[in-house]
């Protein structure tokens, strides 16, 4: 049973992990540390979700929740596009060793409507996790951006999306049939122009394999997906060009990727989780290498 004293030490440990990562400049480091520790402390507010122990009104957050918050706090700052931070599931796998536990706790968090999981088009196994509130605020931002250009009876689809479709439908994909049945269940009639408005906003993306079915998507994510795939390729080629296909992590962190807006730490965690990179501990520090087999 964890006491209050241990919870404080848990938060300070999580904060120290955030702080001990190696950002490049000191003034940016102070700012990032502040935002990260505030993220970690927000664990106290919503730690009753996604947790499995209750004691004195304080609940211990699950491993996956702590890892999600930590990586969320370390999302790189991107100018030009306004996308709220998301976490790739391979990054969570690189932190929490037991993958079955991650899958199960993530399922519980999905049911509790803490997070939303999206399938990305960059690969067969790429899933992005975003906090539910962030996603809802993003949808509202899009609605206000399209406000002047479309009649209001069309814009009501965004409200229906947030209030009816998102809470009920937990999957990453949805079909026309499901959309119609969910909305007719609450008395609304969905039409073609509503669906085309959602596609234009970037919230639905057509599935190539099946007719009339769509993937739920994060809006404005196109450039980030390009950065993601190009950054991965660049990092792997950087390692492949070397003679022994390995490099010290401290040297790697200082490099900047030319083709990606996301930082090095994001890509390293992602490739670690998907099994394309391995870490080994050496007397000279942590070594990142590409496995030979």
């Amino acid at each position: 049973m964890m006491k209050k004293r241990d919870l404080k030490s848990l938060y300070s440990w999580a904060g120290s992990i955030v702080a001990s990562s190696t950002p490049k400049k000191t003034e940016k480091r102070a700012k990032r540390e502040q935002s990260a520790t505030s993220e970690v402390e927000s664990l106290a507010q919503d730690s009753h979700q996604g947790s499995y122990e209750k004691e004195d009104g304080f609940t211990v957050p699950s491993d996956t929740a702590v890892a999600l918050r930590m990586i969320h706090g370390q999302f790189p700052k991107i100018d030009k596009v306004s996308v709220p931070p998301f976490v790739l599931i391979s990054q969570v796998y690189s932190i929490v060793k037991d993958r079955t536990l991650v899958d199960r706790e993530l399922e519980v968090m999905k049911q509790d409507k803490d997070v939303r999981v999206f399938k990305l088009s960059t690969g067969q196994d790429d899933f992005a996790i975003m906090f539910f509130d962030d996603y809802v605020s993003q949808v509202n931002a899009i609605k206000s951006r399209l406000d002047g250009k479309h009649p209001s009876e069309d814009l009501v689809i965004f409200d229906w999306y947030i209030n009816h479709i998102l809470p009920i439908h937990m999957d990453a994909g949805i079909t026309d049939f499901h959309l119609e049945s969910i909305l007719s269940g609450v008395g609304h009639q969905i039409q073609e122009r509503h669906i085309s408005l959602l596609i234009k906003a970037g919230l639905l993306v057509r599935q190539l394999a099946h007719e009339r079915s769509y993937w739920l998507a994060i809006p404005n994510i196109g450039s980030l997906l390009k950065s993601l795939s190009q950054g991965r390729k660049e990092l792997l080629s950087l390692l492949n060009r070397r003679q022994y296909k390995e490099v010290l992590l401290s040297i790697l962190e200082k490099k900047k990727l030319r083709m990606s807006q996301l930082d090095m730490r994001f890509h390293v965690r992602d490739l670690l989780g998907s099994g394309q990179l391995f870490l080994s501990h050496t007397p000279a520090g942590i070594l990142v290498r590409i496995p030979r087999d």
Partner: protein
Amino acid sequence: MWQMVGRRETGRLPPHKFRALLQKTRLYSIELAGHKEIASAHKSGVNSLQQIDATEARYLLSGAADGSVAVYDIEQATAYDHSTRTSKHEALFMVDKRVLNGHLYSVSCVHWYPIDTGIFVTGSFDNFVNVWDTNTTQVELQFNMSKKVYSLSMSTLATTHMLIATGTDDTRIRLCDIASGAFTHTLSGHRDSVWVVQWSTRSEWVLVSGGCDGAIRFWDIRRAGCYQILDQQCSQIGRRPPVLKKSSRTHGREDNLCTKYLNASSPIRQRGQKRSFGISAVDSRTAHYGSVAGLQMTADGLHMISAGTDSRLRLWDVESGCNTLVNYPSTYIRGNKGIQMAVTPDSSLVFTPSLNAILVYDVWSGHSYSSLRGHYDQVNCCAFHPQGQELYTGSNDRKILVWAPRRPIDIDNFDYEDAEQAIKADEDAWSD
């Protein structure tokens, strides 16, 4: 080990636990067998599939890509090599395209007749399913499926029927009857070719099939249409909780998660289980993002492991049709035909071929125990021998390898003359 024997002697360890512990330690130490070797009779071919017969567990059947089929006796060796102390097992016979009505192209699946080893069935890419008589090594019956045969299966529990289920390039699954020589059933519902078919180990009427469209369908052959489609989105945390509420209170944390999930999410479970009036023809639920490459039921028939070309293994609870969300990391499964996995009879370990190695996972937690490396090319199939606790694997490098638990050095057959010679050579004149 001796401590375990001592505890058994004093009665602190019950006999069934002693046996289970011993079996478990042996299983987890599986490696390339030094004492046994199978001399593969296949020439320029790929070992497609193997099957150890259910009755005597003595004969191994293998099919290769040049259309040849061979049978090996894995108990009795044909030759014994004293220098390396390995027993060599050569093929008892081999049939190929030179036999009348033999297969012309690659043999994709082989199966012993479940009752005895007098008959075996093979399916091949030359569109034919052949039923062979083992003693005369001739083709007795031939079924012409008009497309490539990817997989076939016969039910080991069947007492009333002798049906061969075949999965072909066609979207329909056809059941062939040995007794009448005709096709009895045609099961349609898949939207692309069917790569794997398996009969259930719980009921003789239930057939499971996995297709290139990524769907896994359950068919009851007494009714029309499939009664269940597995959906990867429909999931449950761990095993299902017990039915009685009072017994669920004594279970641990994991089942608390499970009951919590069940209370909150009944709409999703209902969507995943349309038991009432059949399933619509356009049902597009998939079990895998790619094609289904392998299916393996556990021995008790309550769970099933499926492998897909999205390089994922999933564990399904058969009764509820839900994905139990066990994550088996770092598999690599690609290709244009099925693979064959093996599960130990007590359902503790699953062996999966993945590129040049066989990966060993714990079924319930997804923990990866080891990867067995020994083949030079892609591994296609595994078969587990329950009594000897041995694993037989076949691959594109034309070899069948045997993997067995580590053996202690055989002291009885220790060669004393060699040892004496070694000692004599060591004696030198430097002492006194």
